[in-house]
């Protein structure tokens, strides 16, 4: 049997046919079933539990995010999301440079708290130079100063039924005439008690600017930026976030994003 050299003309014809086939089936074929809220989306989203458990398994008890030297701070912290809240309540506390601000700590606690900025600053502080990873893909290194969330939780005393820490914020993401959707987020007690999880009032050696969440924002260094709520008004300790807003544990989570934002 002799070797058969392929017919080159036939080859080119087949290539053309294949190319036209490929252009016929666009990716929009999947649009109808994959959107936020669709059953397929909700099914695929279950993989987030696997991600959380796998990450917690390899992390061990207190995985420390890398802390960088001061020379790694090359630019100001890029603000994202809300950068200048206009809600009445926020404008009111902003007027006197947050002198009248009080952080409320409520929910499943032995002793509800109401802490001023000075009281928070008087507590032992932690300063860390860490990398902020945005869900969009960019990163920015900055120095954050604040009080460890675990210290605030200890002062309030957490009841045994407590499972999540919910951050209630001053900023509204979707302003309509009839409605305000206030930003909120939630983390579990493992993230909340992490030594690098701080309520930050300082950025790069200065008071936290408004664009970055003044007067108080949270840093959760094992997760992405959208977990790190800014303009925190109150901390609520709960056993479930199913009844809060859309029930998914956060403003972006209610819009299809994963609750565990470690990746």
């Amino acid at each position, binding site marked *: *049997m002799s*070797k*058969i*050299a*392929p017919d*080159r003309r036939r080859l080119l014809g087949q*290539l053309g046919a*294949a190319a036209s086939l490929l*252009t016929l089936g666009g*990716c*929009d074929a*999947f*649009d109808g079933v*994959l*959107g*936020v809220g669709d059953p397929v*989306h909700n099914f*695929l*989203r279950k*993989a*987030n539990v696997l991600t959380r458990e796998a*990450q917690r398994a*390899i*992390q*061990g008890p207190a*995985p*420390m*995010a*890398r802390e960088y030297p001061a020379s*790694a701070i*090359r*630019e*100001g*912290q*890029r603000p994202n999301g809300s*950068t*200048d809240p206009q809600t009445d309540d926020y404008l009111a506390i902003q007027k006197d440079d947050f002198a009248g601000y009080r952080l409320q700590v409520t929910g499943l606690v032995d002793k509800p708290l109401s802490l001023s900025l000075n009281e928070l600053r008087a507590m032992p502080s932690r300063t860390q130079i860490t*990398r902020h*990873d945005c869900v*969009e*893909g*960019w*990163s*920015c*290194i900055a120095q954050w100063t604040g009080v460890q969330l675990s210290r605030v939780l200890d002062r309030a005393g957490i009841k045994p039924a407590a499972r999540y820490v919910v951050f209630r914020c001053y900023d509204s993401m979707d302003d309509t005439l009839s409605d305000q959707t206030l930003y909120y987020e939630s983390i579990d007690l493992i993230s909340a008690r992490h030594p690098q999880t701080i309520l930050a009032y300082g950025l790069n050696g200065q008071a936290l*600017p*408004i*664009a*970055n969440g*003044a007067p108080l924002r949270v840093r959760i*260094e*094992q*997760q992405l930026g959208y977990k790190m709520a800014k303009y925190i008004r109150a901390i609520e300790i709960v056993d479930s976030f199913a009844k809060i807003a859309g029930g998914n544990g956060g403003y*972006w989570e209610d*819009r*299809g*994003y*994963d609750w565990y934002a*470690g*990746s």
Partner: protein
Amino acid sequence: MTHWVWAVTLFFMVTSGLQIFNAHPILYLGQQSGFGDKQYLGPQAGHGNKQFNNTILDIHAERHEGGIVGVTSILGHDFDTTGLLGMSGSKDQPIYQAFPEWATIPSYFDLATGRVIHFFFAWILVPTWCVWLCASVINGHLWHDIVPKLSDLRLLPGDIISHLRLEFPRKRSYNVLQKLSYAAILILVIPGMILTGLTMSPGVDSAWPWLLDVFGGRQTARLLHFCGMLVIVLFFVVHIVMVIAAGPINEMRSMITGWYRGDDPEAAGGGA
């Protein structure tokens, strides 16, 4: 069998990956993103640093005198990519996203869903690769068919020439170029994609900070992840062209059933 798991998984990983890329279609070198003069300067925001710009690739739309154009900027050199990158769609309904609608899942911009799809299929890809690797080591497929030997490399020049002449001898064993490309994809690119993907995760970086050192930072890992995607897409295109060139019916049968009809007499009619 794993072949079609690869095909479906990689299809969804690439298209959802491009969706994720579109959320911030800029690639940088190093630990972080040097925004240069692109730094947002909101009220009381930290000051930008015009000198700090480590951008490698930047796909965006720009307003020019003649209208808006799609621009792909590589190391500061701008290329007009209107219609494909930066700006696509029709003249009446232009779409300002880095990669066009036909290349992303979902077609419209939806980072949340892109991530959900990407991570779901990542959970398929990693076990598939592990199973493939273990099985290929145990049954000898890796050593016999994939890893190129010295004797293979001696055949390389002839193999390149015959490919250039568009002659594809039908043999049941993989030829040298095939072996080299399969080895590169399966042993280098796929595990490289998994590791650079993990390096982008702040949770994994806390557990395995050495990943940041191996890849030179989260942003370099993102850059390498993107380059790996380009290699996989290139492999896919060449793979399809080769399958068609070698006779699609015969190849499809072998991909599905493992039964390939060769030209060499001793192999003719042989079943696997």
